[in-house]
Structures are given as structure tokens and as C-alpha cells.
């Protein structure tokens, strides 16, 4: 192992620790926001937004997606398209306009 390589890994480790602290803080934020009892559409939006930020941190840094090869990105783009289509199915099959808690 070269010293340059070791320095690189040390830099990564510092990033992992920073991401860990951010994830812990965002978990507390998620719970704190839920205690505010916001209107449901706002609560859903905020909760999913925070979860998406946390998920992105895990995917980008722990799963190294921030510096991955093109083929992996291609697989994930295709997955995202089908995933969004799957989540959109309820919206197109249930269109009389009401949402949860009503």
C-alpha cells in the first residue's frame, strides 16, 4: 500500500465520520418534526425530504455512488425509472383526489 493510498483512505474515513454525525442529527430532526403535528401533506413532504437526504448520504458515501462507474449509474437510472412508475401506479389508479387522513 502506497502512502498516497493511505492518505486517500484516511480522507475517506473522515468523510464517513462526518456522514455518520449528519445521519444521527437528521434522525433526531425527523423525530422532532413529527412532534410538531404539522398538517399531513406538509408532514409527509418534510419527512420524505429528510429521509431522501439521509438516503442520499448513505448511497453517495457509504455505497460510494459519488464516484462509481458509468455502468452502475445506467443500472440505477433504469431502476429509478421503473421504481417511479411503480410508485406512480397508485396515483393513476386512484384519482378521485383525496389523500391520507381525510
Amino acid at each position, binding site marked *: *500500500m502506497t502512502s498516497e*493510498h*493511505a492518505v486517500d*483512505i484516511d480522507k*475517506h*474515513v473522515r468523510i*464517513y*465520520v462526518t*456522514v*455518520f454525525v449528519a*445521519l*444521527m442529527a437528521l*434522525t433526531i430532526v*425527523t*423525530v422532532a418534526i*413529527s412532534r410538531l403535528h404539522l398538517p*399531513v401533506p406538509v*408532514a*409527509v413532504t418534510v*419527512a*420524505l425530504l*429528510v*429521509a431522501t437526504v*439521509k*438516503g442520499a448520504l*448513505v*448511497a453517495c458515501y*457509504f*455505497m460510494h455512488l459519488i464516484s462509481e*462507474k*458509468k*455502468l*452502475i449509474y445506467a*443500472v*440505477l437510472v*433504469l*431502476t429509478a425509472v*421503473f*421504481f417511479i412508475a*411503480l*410508485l406512480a*401506479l*397508485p396515483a393513476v*389508479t*386512484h384519482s378521485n383526489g*383525496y*389523500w*391520507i*387522513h381525510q
Partner: protein
Amino acid sequence: MDIPYTVEIRRDTGLTNGKIGIWLFLASEVMLFGALFASYILIRSGAPTWPRGDTILNVPLATFNTLVLISSSVTMVMAWSSLMRGRFGTFRIYMGTTILLGCVFLVVKYFEYSHKFHDDLFPSTNNFLAIYFTLTGLHMLHVFGGMVVNAYFWGPGAKLWKTNPRWFTNRVEHAGLFWHFVDLVWIFLFPTLYLL
């Protein structure tokens, strides 16, 4: 015959076969959980009333479990980076901690489930509990599966480190990708089931 491209990079993909394999597997996992999330949205949006998760479920326990799983993700990635630095002893400590944190998660989940059963709350009780038990049950199976793989690499599978350290490091990285995915799924399950 040796398995090809376990260590060396394939020129056409720019990846090892193991790396592309685990990502394709994770893509299928996204669709599995995606189908269940879509079912949850459909059932919930179609219901005239829906309980807030925190009126039925134990939020402090689930928050604790979220912190446990996030911690286990960090120890997992530290286990891999220890191997990248050539420190096998440190790898064992981090991997062992990851497995222990997985155990803690499952034990807490056991207490949560048994409390529900004690209160006569079963998957058949209502739609909320049906989707709660299905999603968290499937997730728990994934945690258990990840722990089995991690335990293998901590124990008997670690022999590979002596003969082919790069291959072993790649294997641990792939096990880590699965473990982080399991963490990622929980990051979405926690607010959607417990807090909304």
C-alpha cells in the same frame, strides 16, 4: 475453473463481476420494496381513515433502532476501509461490531413484535398492522441475511484474506453494499410507518 474477474477489472464494464452482480441484485431489491411501498400508498390513500403510526407503534424504540442501524453502516464501511489499509485485526473488530449491532436491532424488534402480539395486535387486525408487519418483517429477514453473510466473512470466510486479500476485500465491499441498502430501506420505513 476459477471465477473470472473477481479481482481484475473487466475492460468492457470497467468493473469486477462481483460489483456489477451485487448492484443488479440491489436493483431487484429496490423493485421488491418498491412494490410494497406502492401497495402501502394505495391502501393508505384509499382508506377513509388511517391511524398515525405513533399512536400504535413505539417511536422511542424505533428511533433507537434507527441509530443502531446507522451506526452499523458506519462500522461496516470502516471494516472495509480497514482491509483497504491492510489491517485485518481492525477489520475483525469493526465487522464484529456490525454483527452485534445487527443483533441489537433484531432483539429490539423482537420486543416490539412481542408487545404487539401481547396486545392482540396481529397482521390480520387491520390494514395498518398488515403493512407494518409485512414491510418490517421483510426488512428483518434482510437484516438477518446480511448478518449471516457478515458472520461468514468475520469467521470461516476470512481465510481468503491469507491467500487472496484483494478478492476478500472486494467480497466484504459487496456484503457492505447489501448492508447499506438494508440501512437505506429502514431510513424510509421509519418515518413512513412510525411517524406519519
